[in-house]
Every structure is written in C-alpha cells, then in structure tokens.
C-alpha cells in the first residue's frame, strides 16, 4: 500500500459513504458538547422528532459560562442559568454523559477529554467549539463545528465532509530554553498568517515537536484553528501511549496492548506525501508576544511594535494601523516596555498541570507587581486544580499575589464575570486577541505561561530567557 499520512488513515477508516462529486459521509467517534452552542441543536432535534443516535458517544460539560469563584452560590446570570438547565435537561432526556458544574471532573471540554482518556488516537472527534483541534495532539482527527452540524451529529453520528489538504509543519532541532509549545505555534501562525491554513489539516512533526510532552502538543494543536486550519495533529508515539495508560476511559492490561499496537500503526508512514510543508529551525525560535488584534500579529519578545508602514501589502498595512489604534500602541515601542493591567493564566490552550507548574516556578518567592490590578490563575479542570493543590502550587500562586480559582473558560472568552474592562491591557495565556475578546475595549497580548508569570511579577513583558527559572516548562 502507498505511504499514507495520519490524516489519510483516519479519514479512510471513517468513511460511511462515498459518492463521486459529493462530500463524504464520515463517522464521528466522540461528540463533545457544552452549554454555549448546543441548546439550539437539541431544540432542532426535538422539533423534528429525532433522537440522539448514540448518546454513549456523546459527552457534555459545563465550561463556558461557569463561575470560577464559589460554585455553591446560586447562579445570578439568568441567561447562563438557562443554558446550564437546558444542558442538564437535554442530557437527561437523551442519556448523554454529563459533567455538570459540580462534578469532580468538570473542566474545559478540551482539557477533560484527554485527561479522562475519552480522547484516543485514531478517533474522529467533533465539538461545537473551534478549539476542538486540541485533541489532534493524540493522533485524532478533531475539529470544531457549528450548531447545525451538532444537530446533524446528534441525529446521525455522522458528518458530511470535504477532504482537506495536508500541511506538514516540521520544527527541527532542540527546543531552546524558555521557548515553549505556545511560542512554536505563535511563530507558525505569524509565518503563515491567520488564513494560511484554510483548507488544510496540519501535522506537526520534527525533533522539537516530538520532544514535547502531550500537554505541549495539545497547546500547539489547540491553536491550529488560529492559523485557519480545519485540524492539527501529531502522530501518536510512546509519549502518547504513556500519557493515556491508566486514564479512566482507556483500556487496561492486554486490551491496552492491543490498542497501542493499533495506535502505533496510525502514525504517518515514511515517505507519505503532504500538499505543503513548512520547516522551522527550533534554534531560531524565541518567546513570542502578540501586539495586534489577531494571533498572526505577533513578534519576538526582544522586538518592537512594528510600524504599519513597514508592511508591503496595503491590506496588511491598513489592518496593522487599525490594530495599533485599538491596542493603543505606538510603532517602535519595545515589547518589554508595554505595561499591563491584568494577567490571566488559563484557557484550553494553557491551563494544564505542566503549565501551572512552570508558571509557579517562575513566581515562587516573588510577588505580583503593584502596578497590576489582577493576576488570575484558572486551572483547566478540577482534576488539574486538585493536582496543583496537592503539589502546593495554589499556595505559591496565592503567596505571590495571584487569585486561585475554580475551573472553566473564564477570561479567555469572558462569558462569566472574569473580564477585562475597557482600555485595560492583559498578558494572557489564551488563544485569541480579537477586539473585545476578553471584554469590550479590552486589549489582549497572547503569551506562554512562563512569559505571563514573569510579566505579572514585573508589570510589563520581560524576556523569560533572562530569568533563572526560564525552563519551568520541563
């Protein structure tokens, strides 16, 4: 058989029906849902008199609008409450797995899927959330869908799909100190642009990617959508299998060995062809900071805010000018001189235990700058929260002046009360710096957890490589 990519292998294994000139009907192995985008899908299902075809393949969680403060208090936001109640009712009616806001396993959907072993190599996984690409880190084909497609998957357990093109993104050499998976992906998006991946599925590879933990790989795959890609993936390997072993939904004993043998066969074959290739050298990468209003407007921490006049394309020039007005930044300002109001460590991009460990190492024994209004740590899941507390990380953060919260999407999207106020500027470990993303008029700079931690201490960005604990990330 001809050499195939991971994407091609998963695609071919999930074809339910293929007809020339039509999109392919593919089977969906895991359907993840949350309170924000699912109510209309269940309502549509009900209106048509349809049922959930495979409730056991469907997993729901409350994450987008949950409070990260005291969850035992009544929900005051009536609209959010309406969504929580609708999700609970829909799950009960249809027999769909539900992690409600009081479950010990509650958390951001893209954190808990992998952490519970619901996510496994070779699966097709969809969710009404664009950051579903996270799960591709396991060698799964995972992507975000709209509410109509949620309804389609609920009713049929299938989706009609057009096959994507493939792009190999290879990072050679060893990861430099202080440079994280977040910096890898921000560099990639900076190079290809936020629409550079439209129509593609990315596969990340090369020594520096292979050397990442599962958590780092998830960070990279998470932001594939910010480069416009349908999905991002990493071929499964020993790191993948070691992460999965023993998780609640992962087979045990002999069955595990059988699964591993299958998972191993999914990796992209030597000599498989990609439609495009992007190659980067790890030694040229540095900690990254976004300066504009999309994740492609990004530069190295040692750089300056660019001058819009320096962009060759008039469209880019205009976009950069607009972005600088919104961000209230002057061309030529050193990135390290940008002062901050709030720091947010959290989101499906960077709120896993390794992210928190790395950030805690940076802040241990220090204190958040007096110039800051707030520094917030929001664990991605309650499991992560408990694990961090067992290791004493909560105490390190609290002693350093951070707030330590319960799990949820929080200030990444600001659907609960964790928001930026108009004109405020944040260093954030999340994934989007769009206008108003973290609160109307708020200004977001995306960075890695160690960069956010150091920025919190200093009140402005600093080059984490100058610090002793730059490599908290390992």
């Amino acid at each position, binding site marked *: 058989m001809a050499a195939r990519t991971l994407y091609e292998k998963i695609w071919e*294994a999930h074809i339910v*029906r293929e007809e020339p*000139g039509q*999109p392919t*009907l593919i*089977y969906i192995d895991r359907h993840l849902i949350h309170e*924000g*985008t699912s109510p*209309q899908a269940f*309502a549509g299902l009900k209106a*048509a008199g349809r049922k959930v*075809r495979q*409730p056991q*393949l469907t997993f729901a969680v409350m994450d987008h609008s949950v409070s990260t403060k005291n969850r035992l208090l009544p929900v005051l*936001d009536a*609209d*959010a409450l*309406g*969504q929580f109640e*609708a999700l609970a009712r829909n*799950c*009960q009616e249809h*027999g769909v*797995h539900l*992690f409600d806001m009081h*479950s*010990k*396993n509650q958390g951001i959907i893209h954190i808990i899927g992998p952490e519970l072993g*619901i996510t496994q190599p070779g699966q097709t996984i969809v969710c009404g*959330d*664009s950051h579903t690409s996270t799960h591709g880190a396991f060698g799964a084909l995972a992507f*975000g*869908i*709209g*509410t*109509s*497609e949620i*309804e*389609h998957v609920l*009713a*049929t*357990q299938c989706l009609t799909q057009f096959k994507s093109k493939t792009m190999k993104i290879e990072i050679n050499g060893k990861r430099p100190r202080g440079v994280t998976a977040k910096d890898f992906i921000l560099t990639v998006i900076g190079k290809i642009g*936020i*629409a550079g991946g*439209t129509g593609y599925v990315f596969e990340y590879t090369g020594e520096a990617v292979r050397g990442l933990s599962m958590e780092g790989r998830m960070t990279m795959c998470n932001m594939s*959508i910010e480069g*416009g890609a349908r999905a991002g993936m990493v071929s499964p390997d020993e790191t993948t299998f070691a992460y999965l072993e023993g998780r609640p*939904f992962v087979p*045990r004993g002999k069955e595990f060995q059988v699964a591993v043998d299958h998972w191993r066969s999914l990796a992209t074959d030597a000599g498989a062809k990609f439609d495009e290739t992007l190659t980067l050298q790890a030694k040229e990468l540095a900690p990254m900071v976004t300066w504009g209003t*999309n994740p492609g407007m990004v530069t190295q921490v040692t750089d300056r805010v660019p001058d819009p006049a320096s962009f060759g394309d008039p*469209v880019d020039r205009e976009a950069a000018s607009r972005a600088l007005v919104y961000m209230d930044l002057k061309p030529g300002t050193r990135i390290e001189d940008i002062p901050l109001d709030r720091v947010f460590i959290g989101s499906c991009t960077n709120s896993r235990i390794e992210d928190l460990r790395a950030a805690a190492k940076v802040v241990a024994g220090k204190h958040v700058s007096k110039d800051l209004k707030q520094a917030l740590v929001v664990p991605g899941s309650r499991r992560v929260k408990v694990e961090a507390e067992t290791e004493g990380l909560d105490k390190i953060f609290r002693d350093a002046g951070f707030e330590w919260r319960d799990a949820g999407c929080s200030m990444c*999207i*600001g*659907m609960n009360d964790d928001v930026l106020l108009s004109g405020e500027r944040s260093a954030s470990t999340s994934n*989007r710096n*769009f*206008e*108003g*993303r973290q609160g*109307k008029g708020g200004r977001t700079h995306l960075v890695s957890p160690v960069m956010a931690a150091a920025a919190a201490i200093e009140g402005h960005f600093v080059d984490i490589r100058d610090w002793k604990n730059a490599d908290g990330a390992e």
Partner: protein
Amino acid sequence: MEPFVKHTGLVAPLDRVNVDTDQMVPKQFLKFLTREGYGRVLFYDWRYLPGEKPNPDFVLNQPRYKGASVILARANFGCGSSREHAPWAILDYGFRTILAPSYADIFYNNCFKNGILPVTLSNEQMDELFKRAEKQQGYRLTVDLEQQIVTDEDGLRYSFEVDPFRRDCLLRGLDDIGLTLVHDQHITGFEGKNLRLPVMYDPVDVKYHKQ
C-alpha cells in the same frame, strides 16, 4: 431552510479584512436558547456606542445602506470562533448573500446550513464592487445561484464557482440531516463493523453513563 435561487438587493460594503465571529456576535449574546433575534446585535461593539446608540461612523448605520441584503466583505471573513450565532445574526439582520475573496472554514460551512450564499470572487472583482457600492447610492446586485453569476444594472457580470452539492442543497433548501438519514443503512452497517462504546474502567462522577 429557505432555498436560495436568485436574490437582488441593496449592497452594503464592509471594508475590513479578517472580520472574526467575535465581532459579528460578541460573547454576551451567546447565552440564549434560540436561533432567532440576533440581527439586533450583529457587529454590536462596532455598531453601537454606550447606551446602544447607533455609532454614526459604522458603515451599516449610514442611512444609504438601510435595508441592505447583500454584504461585501474582505478576505478571511468569519474567522475565529465556530459560533453559528454569527450567520444567524447576518440572516436575521436581513443579509441573504455575502461576497468576499475568501472565508474562514467553519463560518463558510455554517452559512450554507442557514440559507445564506457566500460567494467567492477575486480581489480585483471585489475592489470593483466596493468602488461601485461606495460611489453609487442605492447600488444593487443580483446574485443568481442557478446561473452562478453576479450582475448589476450597469452590465457588470461576474461568474463564480461553488461546490455542486452545496449549490444543490441551497437551491432546494434541503435539510441535510434528512439527506444523511436516507443513508441510514450505510450508517448502521458501519456501526455493525466498527462501533466500540466507551468503557469506564475507573468510575468518575459523570451522569447518565450506561454500561
């Protein structure tokens, strides 16, 4: 879903690249349980000043574009979040068709599910349409999906490409769940060979898990 065959309407130009779905429908409006009523909040932060007063600087608030049903946009329209609230808002506001040089993937799919036709034209063609819409008050375009052409009253005529399957669904206003369920036998057959239900080896506190 309402079929889309041919539509003629007033044109509004939105001359910005990379318009993301967070701008189309900001997060505070993602908490409702219905698909209706989002037209009022479309482009909320751009459209309104504090107190929901219309921002006179925003293009859609100009009286000449009132009642527009065709929107001109720039590259990578609809990037970011998968929220289908974005096309719901576009449709509810009154737009039936979008013309742009490119779209983000999820948004593009979502349009077809809601009877909105996203037409893809070249940058040069879009420049020309922007020029005409800005110059000529009351500028109207006709978008004909059957013929796959865009025309105006001054003889402009651009043809466009669209996937035949999506075109057919839109022309006939087909419910694609119904279309898929026609192949129920295939799905059942696939499940017979491949379905593995998740097993919980360690109990976790999830509700409604059946073993």
